[in-house]
């Protein structure tokens, strides 16, 4: 199979074969990361810009390492408040970077759909590093990669996503990814944080975490933003963690070999108790190191795809 896409914008639009191709490519990239000299010349001469409108240490660092291991020329561009105040539009900013020779733009933006605007108007390849509440494909792909590595096969697994699904791009991308690869997906959280009509994509909705954990293979915890309390979706973080926090006791309801994932950074004592975070089940650090391999695969595939030939 040949990867035909010029951009990777989200998992909704990828086919299951395309997802598998990215994961398989990531396997070889992981092998590169385990060598003494962690570098291949795949993107030599290609300029990749990391255009991050939102602060994000780990995703940006992970992309940057991935780009460097592929020998790309890397430019990190983090527009500050002042350039927004100066009134430059997103498109103008991106066009400037393209004029400097960028052929791949990795974009992180607080507003849903921003990468689609660039994909429509620019000639560069666009890789979405997270847009608003919409999609976060590199995170979901590394989650799929990690689960596949541990469980061998995704089809038939039961996954539960816990927390603020409404405001989570990680949740949306993972829902698409796991469903496309044949897993059963559940979501659980307070009803104020479950998006309208989500069950229409074949997701089971729960409001009780204990019901939701029953017999699952994978628990994916979402990060809770503190401002949700201010916007009236939650009475307090304390109450949230009582009803939706993951404890060792609750985890016993899941399958014995359950794995617990979290996109980070963790609010210890809110989404999950410290003991669970440190528990053997946790593959959180695995997720981080796999992130580099998956991002290498994404960049390599878009840069060498039919769309760019």
């Amino acid at each position: 199979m040949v990867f035909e896409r010029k951009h990777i914008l989200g998992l909704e639009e990828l086919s299951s074969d395309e997802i598998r191709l990215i994961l398989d490519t990531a396997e070889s990239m992981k092998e590169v990361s385990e060598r003494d000299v962690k570098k291949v010349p795949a993107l030599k001469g290609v300029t990749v810009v990391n255009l991050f409108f939102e602060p994000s240490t780990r995703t940006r660092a992970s992309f940057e390492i991935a780009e460097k291991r592929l020998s790309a020329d890397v430019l990190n561009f983090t527009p500050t408040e002042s350039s927004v105040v100066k009134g430059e539009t997103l498109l103008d900013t991106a066009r400037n970077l393209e004029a400097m020779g960028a052929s791949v733009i990795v974009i992180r933006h607080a507003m849903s759909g921003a990468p689609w605007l660039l994909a429509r108007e620019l000639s560069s390849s666009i890789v979405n590093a997270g847009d608003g509440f919409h999609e976060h494909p590199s995170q979901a792909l590394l989650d799929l990669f990690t689960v596949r590595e541990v469980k061998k096969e995704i089809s038939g697994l039961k996954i539960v996503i816990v927390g603020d699904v409404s405001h989570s791009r990680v949740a949306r991308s993972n829902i698409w990814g796991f469903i496309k690869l044949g897993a059963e997906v559940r979501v659980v959280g307070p009803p104020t944080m479950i998006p309208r009509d989500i069950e229409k994509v074949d997701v089971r909705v729960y409001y009780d975490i204990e019901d939701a954990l029953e017999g699952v293979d994978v628990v994916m915890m979402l990060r809770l933003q503190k401002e949700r309390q201010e916007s009236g979706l939650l009475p307090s973080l304390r109450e949230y963690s009582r009803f939706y926090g993951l404890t060792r006791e609750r985890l016993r309801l899941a399958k014995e070999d359950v794995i617990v994932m979290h996109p980070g950074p963790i609010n210890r004592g809110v989404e999950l108790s410290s003991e669970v975070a440190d528990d053997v089940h946790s593959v959180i650090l695995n997720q981080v190191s796999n992130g580099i391999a998956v991002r290498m695969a994404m960049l390599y595939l878009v840069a060498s795809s039919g769309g760019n030939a």
Partner: protein
Amino acid sequence: MKILVKGGQLVDPSQEINEIRTLYIEDGKIKSYPRGTKELEKDPSIKVIDASGKIVSPGFIDLHVHLREPGFEHKETIRTGCMAAAAGGFTSVVCMPNTNPVNDNASVTEYILLKARTEGVVNVFPVGAITKGQKGEELSEIGEMWEAGCIAISDDGRPVMNSRVMRHAMEYAKAFGLPVISHAEDLYLSSGGVMNEGFTSTMLGLRGIPNASEEVMVARDITLAELTKTHLHIAHVSTAGAVRLMREAKKRGVKVTAEATPHHFTLTDKAVLSYDTNAKVNPPIRSKEDMEAIKEGLNEGIIDIIATDHAPHTEDEKKVEFDLAPFGISGLETALPLALKLVEDGILTLTELIRKLTFNPAQIIKSDRGTLKLGAPADVVIFDPNKTIKVDREKFRSKGKNTPFHGWQLSGQILYTVVGGHIVFPT
């Protein structure tokens, strides 16, 4: 100017006319329906239009447009907005007060009317703001705006959230016989929303505006209309629940009318699937069920009129992140062909459609227009309902090219628009 419109299918719902009939215009008025035209045709001072096979109807009246002047002339001016109206078959437009400065006092009203007289090519009827600065707090000088020429009051786009203020506005407006136009939106429920709340907003990760934000306010304003016995007009109905509330209110004899826009009866919220900001509008384009309910409402007469909510914006303003793009669709120049689809689909007869574009809106603003009665102002439109057209936003007279219908193949072409006996389209 004297005009003889020969042999067209004359459709005038105000007189229940729908037949082939010739129309003669002189001194800006509908002069006669001549039987023999030979004598008139010999007169070289008379412009003869052969309308055979075409529809001749009263000029359309759009009860909901944003002309943007004063203050936002980069989006539209009274001149360009009127030209767009003429191109769309509209001979009268009712313009909303959310300009800068807001039309909340007689001097702004006078400015708009002066500009309209000198630069506009169609009749312009301003709507005054309900409250000073559209802030929802203190009543504007409604009486003086009425004297200056306002024909309704509304805080369109910024609903009056304080129910007591709205109650007093409705009571007060009664003294001048002004209808109160409600942009029904509970700002707490819609807060931060940029599109319809539902499956599509969930998929796109965009903040939704629930149907309830409209319905809560429609229910409130119907209740207040009942209390104050004032004529309430609900702008741009977008939800099935609002149609249901209107149906119930009308049955009980509450003095309430309503409008629907072409985008709300043509599109569903899937129109924004690719983050197309040209389909970003407030109230948002909703689900298929809502769209069907609006069509039913039009069919049953619960929705009295079709209005465009013409809201022009520049391309630069729309070519941004979806969250940042302004709400609004440039609607004047696509209204007729989109509305004709209702006839094609059997929702309305041609006569009913024309009634909703002419006589009904005229009744709401108590205008003597919207009719071809002898002696009435000669506001006339001639169109070919069967001519296939392709929507091309580059050809819009409006400065606003923001349409989700670009490239659509539709039927219905405006051939002539006549205002007060003068041909204003084509120019």
